[in-house]
Structures are given as structure tokens and as C-alpha cells.
């Protein structure tokens, strides 16, 4: 199954609603590996099943999108 890199970022207007252990919850999702994190954002690698799970579980308070290049 192909793995891709994604951003999971706390929506700016939902900061108060987010559980303090959201990174741990993210890391516990099968097929997901947290690569790096800050208090408001995580960069993860995930397979298709893993990212679908993340989207279902986190979509209300988080932005979930692929990592994009900028130059």
C-alpha cells in the first residue's frame, strides 16, 4: 500500500476544542507514523487506510492535506 506525507493541522478557530493528547491519538492510528510535530501541526506518513481513518477521526477540528512543495 502506498505511503504519502500529510499535514494534520489544528484549525485556527478550533484550538480550544482540541484534546491535548491529539498527537498521541494520531500516532495510535494504524498505518500512521508521526514524523514531526509542533503544538499546532503534525507531519505524518500514512497509507491509504490510515489517512482515511485520520480523516474520519480528526476532520472536524483539523485540516488534513498532502504536503506540498514551495520554491
Amino acid at each position, binding site marked *: 500500500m502506498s505511503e504519502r506525507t500529510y499535514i494534520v*493541522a489544528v484549525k485556527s478557530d478550533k484550538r480550544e476544542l482540541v484534546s491535548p493528547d491529539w498527537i498521541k491519538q494520531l500516532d495510535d492510528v494504524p498505518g500512521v507514523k508521526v514524523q514531526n510535530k*509542533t503544538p499546532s501541526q503534525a507531519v505524518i506518513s500514512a497509507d491509504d487506510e490510515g489517512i482515511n481513518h485520520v480523516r474520519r477521526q480528526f476532520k472536524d477540528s483539523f485540516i488534513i492535506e498532502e504536503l506540498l*512543495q*514551495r520554491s
Partner: protein
Amino acid sequence: MAQFVIAPRISGQPAAKNLRRARTRAVAAQFSGFADSAAAEATPELGALIVEGEKQEFESKQAELADDYIVEELKPRRPSLFTAAAASPPGMEQLPSGIGATVELTATCEGTPLSGAMASVSFVAFRGFVTTTFESTDSSGRAVFAYDPQVWIPFTITVVPLSRAWAASSIVTGSSMKMSLPALPKNGPLGWWKRLLGVSGSDAQLGEGIRVGVVDSGVGPHPALAHVKKVGAFLNGAYLSEPDETLDVGQHGSHVTGIIGARPAQGSGGFEGISPGAELVAARIYPGGGKLPEPTGFATNADIANAILALSQDEKCDIINLSSSGPMRSATETDRINAAFDSGTLLICAGGNGGGPPVLFPAAEPNVVSVAGLGMANTIPLGVLDVLTFPTQADRYSVTGLFSANFNSLGFEIKTSAPGVGIISTVPATSTEGAPYVAMSGTSMATPCVAAALAIILSRDPQYRTMPRNRERSIHAWRLLGSKLRPLGLSLPYQGYGMPIV
């Protein structure tokens, strides 16, 4: 283990397609149980099997095949591009670096060698393919490009110096090329772009009290940038908070920062930033370690978003300069830009160097000031690389001699335009030069011109400086900037609403 190709011989035979399928199926059956894997995945319609097995075992099996099968070892093929990477693909025998011919370059400026310059030669193949290969010049200003003369013809050579000289390009006229690059002007602090923006002299107070963040490849070391606050690096989602992590991994960030607020020592002959009184805060988002022509590597939307958040919320910047862009919209960037806007921070973003529509992201977002680049015909020596930014369309030239540079990404999202061709600014010090300067072109250079002009405008507005950090403050800043934009007589996608004049 080795890989072999088995294919029925079909040239000159009637009903080749059906014959090919039947024979391929037959040979697949013959090899099943012997070959490792690839035969099982073979597509009979394609008529060729890739079989993996021990060479000796394979050769004995091969004898059982009829003569009308072609059997040979699998041979790697690669794109016909002459690049350093293609010269040594993994798993292949290393080719010698020189394969027939060379172009040898010696680059100088005012009689002294230009070391560390990025040199490139573009080659055209007899079949029309074009490729470019890059080298750095050594301490004697020399770089050598090897190529296969049976495939490639060198046609242009380009030198982008680390400092002191303009970048230049030339037709390759022989195997030994000597290029003497024109020296950059030493005009003291005032560049033409400053005069155009309405700055008529050196004034250390310009932009005072305004905090400008720069999200880029880092900053310095350079004596004219020693005052810049360094907040670290945002890389692949991580934050490295040590100030040294902010040091420039290329030249781009130092150049951009210097355009806004370089403070050269008095009488040094160095170019001064447009708003040297502004407080500057730098964050690095490029990883470095890339290869020429992109030694900084690539940034990501994750790191831009994190840097915007830090410079807006933690560092309380009034303005953030972002001279980076990409073709895809990012919801994370948009969220952080909007949050910054709601906290009184206005982003100034490079529209991109796509050379046509569309405007790139995040410059195409509504809550940012997107910038296109302008040039001025008589400010650049003929023959230097920046001349290639001159457009050929008449409607891109204003009556004043300003033009919309041909690298601009175009669209109705462009809100302003500013000088961005042949802009001279600071780059990191080297072992040989303590305070170097270089000329660069792009919307990356136009963007800090707008950021600096806005810093001057805001610093002169007593109301702005007392306003709480909220959305109204950003709207007030945008209105002030809008009131200072002067239309140039160009269409909206070229100039936006005009160029700021302070």
C-alpha cells in the same frame, strides 16, 4: 539471479498479434515453476516475458526453445538527458566523467577570477532534445563540462556569480570559453528601485517601529544584516529554535531581507535596504543540501504555515514577507494566513515566476498582498542575464520605461507591482568576501520592495501604531497601502492596482 527477456520473433510474420499471444502463453507455461516471478505477471498482449532465474539454469532451459524466440539479458535504458545524475544511475557501471569532449569556462570580473559561481551549459541533441548541466567554478574561476559530441552540441553558457558581478550568458563558440562579467555598480546606499518607490536618500529611521518578518532560506551572515532577529528553522514539520538554524542555506533569504532593511556601515559603499529602520525577524523554511541550480532544496506548505504562525502570534510581526510559492492551494497555509490577518499581520506574497497565468499560491489567496515584478530598461547593462526578463509585448511597457517582467505569473489576483529586475542586495559572507552583494530578479525581489514600502507607510501613520492587533488593523494597513499605489498604465494582471510610492 539475472533477468532475461523472452520474446517471440514476429517481424515479417503474418497475423503477428494472435501469433504473439499464443507463443507468449506457450513460453510462459514452459517457464512456469522455473522462473521466479516475472513470468507470472507477463502480459501476453505485449509479447515479451521478463524472467528471473539463475543464469546457468536459464541457459539449459533456453536450449529447449524453438529458434523463432529472441532470448537476451534484460538491458537497462535511461532517458537521453545529459545530467550529472544520469551519468551514474544506481546499479550501473560508472561511466568516465569525460566522454569525448569538454567545454572549459574561465569566469572573471575586473580581471579577477569569480570563484563559486554557478555555471551552466545548455546542450541540444541532434534529435532536438535540450538539456542543461551545472557546475560551480573553482578558485581560479574555472569549470569544465564534459559531454558526448556524438550526441550533444553545446549552445549557451551561463554564469551566475556569488557576488560582485552581473550574471551573464553567451553562445558557446569553442571548447575554451573566457567570460568577463560586468561589475555591479558601487553607488552607495541608493538603488534605482528605492528612488522609484519614493525614497530619495539614505535615512536610518525609515520603517522605524514596524516589525517585518521574513520567511525564506534564512539570513546572513552579513554585517549589514547583523541586526536581524533569528528565530530558527521550520523544516518538514519540526521547529529548530537555535538562532544559528536561521543562517542562510543559500542566498535568496539574505537578498530578500537586505532589500527590506540592510544597514551597511556608513561609507562602505554597500546598498542600504528600503526601510533600514524596520525591525526584522527571520525564519528559515528551506532545508539546504540541494543540488545546483536549487541548492536550498524545497520548502513545504507545512513549514510556511508554521513560520507564519510563529511570526504572527509569537513575534507580533506587522508584516510578513513570503517570496515562495507553488501551483497547488494549501488549506493549512490559508488558515494560518487568515489567522495572521485576524491578528493584525498582513502577508506580502510573491505572485510567482510562472511567466503567465495563473498566479501561484499562497499569493492567489484573497487575504494577502500579491506582487508582480517590474523592470526599468536603462538600469541593466546589455548582455547580462537579467535582460532576458524584458518582455516582447508592447502592452507590458509603460510610457515611463517601466515594464512588467516576462517572468511574472499573471492574473487578476495580482494586487501590486514593484521593482523586481536586477535588484542588488546582500548575500551571505564567504571566506573571500566579508560583505558581498549580488543582483537578482524575480517576484521574490519585488515582494520585499512592497513589504519595505508598507513598513515606511505604516511607521508614518500614528493611528496604525496604536491600534490593537486585530483584523481592523490589517484592513487599515491594506487601505493605507492601497492609497499609496500609483497605476502605471498597464493592465490589471500585469500591475495590479499599481506600484507603492511612499
